[in-house]
């Protein structure tokens, strides 16, 4: 598995990122080296080994009861832009 400019561009798309030319160059080298190292896992036989999953028998599930949530006005104070009790996003239609 070799990392090239096409893969970097695909990963930018998947990650919702736009890298600078300098970042692209650095990450191309870094990801190539790191992914080659990670590929060492392929040398281990894991046939019939279940994938780890985080499930407990005693999982702490609370009752499905409606309760009051966090204060809307306070939450909106953290929004970069808000109006009429809502987040403001650029027009899409």
């Amino acid at each position: 598995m070799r990392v090239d400019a096409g893969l970097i561009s695909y990963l930018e798309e998947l990650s919702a990122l736009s890298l600078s030319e300098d970042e692209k160059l650095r990450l191309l080298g870094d990801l190539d080296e790191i992914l080659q190292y990670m590929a060492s896992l392929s040398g281990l036989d894991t046939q019939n080994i279940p994938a780890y999953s985080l499930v407990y028998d005693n999982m702490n599930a609370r009752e499905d009861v409606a309760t009051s949530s966090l204060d809307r006005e306070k939450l909106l104070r953290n929004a970069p832009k808000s109006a009429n009790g809502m987040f403001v996003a650029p027009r899409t239609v």
Partner: protein
Amino acid sequence: MHDMSALELSAAIMAKKIGVIEAVDAYIDRIEASDSRLNAFLCVEKDKARAKASQIQARLDAGERLSPLAGVPVAIKDNISVEDMQCTCASNMLGGYTPVFNATAVERLERAGMIVIGKLNMDEFAMGGSSETGVFGAVKNPWDTSRVAGGSSGGSAAAVASGEIPLALGSDTGGSIRQPCAFCGVTGIKPTYGAVSRYGLVAYASSLDQIGPIGNNIDDCAAMLSIISGRDDMDSTCVLESPFDFGQEACPQRLDGIKIGLPRNYFDAGIAEDVKSAVMAAARELEEAGAVVEEFEMPLMDYMIPAYYIIACAEASSNLSRYDGLKYGYRSPNADTLQGVYRMSRSEGFGLEVKRRIMLGSFVLSSGYYDAYYKKALQVRSLIKDAYSSLFGRFDMILSPVAPGTAYKIGENAGDPLKMYMGDIYTVSVNLAGLPAAALPCGFGAKGMPIGFQLVGSAFSEGKLVSAARVYQNRTEFNKARPGGEAL
């Protein structure tokens, strides 16, 4: 006051020898005197802390008994939510964000009468092992300010080591409590996954993250852990029924009947000689205290780092997709379309290490590579968990180094991410298996920097680890050493 343990300080407050406001002021004075050289604190909320101190003093004066840590100042890593205090995760992405709720751990500390006085520096979004990747600059090691404090909870460890705060909260996803403790010569506990609620901890890798205490000795850390641990309706993975109760043993000195495993291959290669001899000496100390120490070969050692980074990055790429520039945090002024707001805000808001891990995560989860990387890593995680289960059939606990070397120079490893990742070799498998571990100082290296070792136990065996750590610290003086010099 700065020579007292947190428990001693609270006892002095209860005995009315020291006032709560006096204690808070003394620590704030200390921070103001030393933090410009350490960069451990990102904010100090003096007025809020003094107001809280006054309330706690009134309650204590009225005869309320809050906890063994009542009145003690505490500081919180800046990825754990404290209501009405900044929570930047040392990132531009969360600039200006102020949580409107307390993390459960913080809520419980406040209920126990502890006073939050500020937030602590860290690697950006807890992604790093040196506390250099944050946007507010590197945390300096109090033993030598040209060196890193470790990470990602470097601010927490440096603040405790320098006497700026008696206790701090950190978080540990792959060693982020234990490694900075080792680098700064302080004590910390990474609790069992599911012992402490993650509600209010900004998520990095949700199946690995745990909040835990950092302090000057195991008793202080145990007292703090017993306050923050236990079931919480806000975190379904927090399954510990009742908070830990570690009791109050009077100076235990013996470990008769305890079997400790020593992973022989952890000491074979890649470890500095000074670290190796200090950790071996710690094993001998426990042996002299009555424990039986037996060497064994740790299985799967070569697969721990790849499995950890695949899983951690996969979870990070999913968790960090919430930063969209709309609901909170940074929004790029340079975008006028919805997609543009997402991409520009994230590109301008995140630093390079965070982008690197998000992109690695996107890769290992992507179509065509999922099975070979992510699913494979989950299978390896099952094997590592099973290997530990079988080891805990033979041993009560495992003793190992925390890091292969001591604190390095700031900037020394910054351009080599893979080298940084390899530094986590002794810590990440503990998170993959969801186990508890206590990091304890055990000496000083050739360059005069602290060395730490860790005791790893089976799930929810914190009581055993605390007992063994108490024995070790009662027989040694390493946790009492304090940095001097120009930093302080």
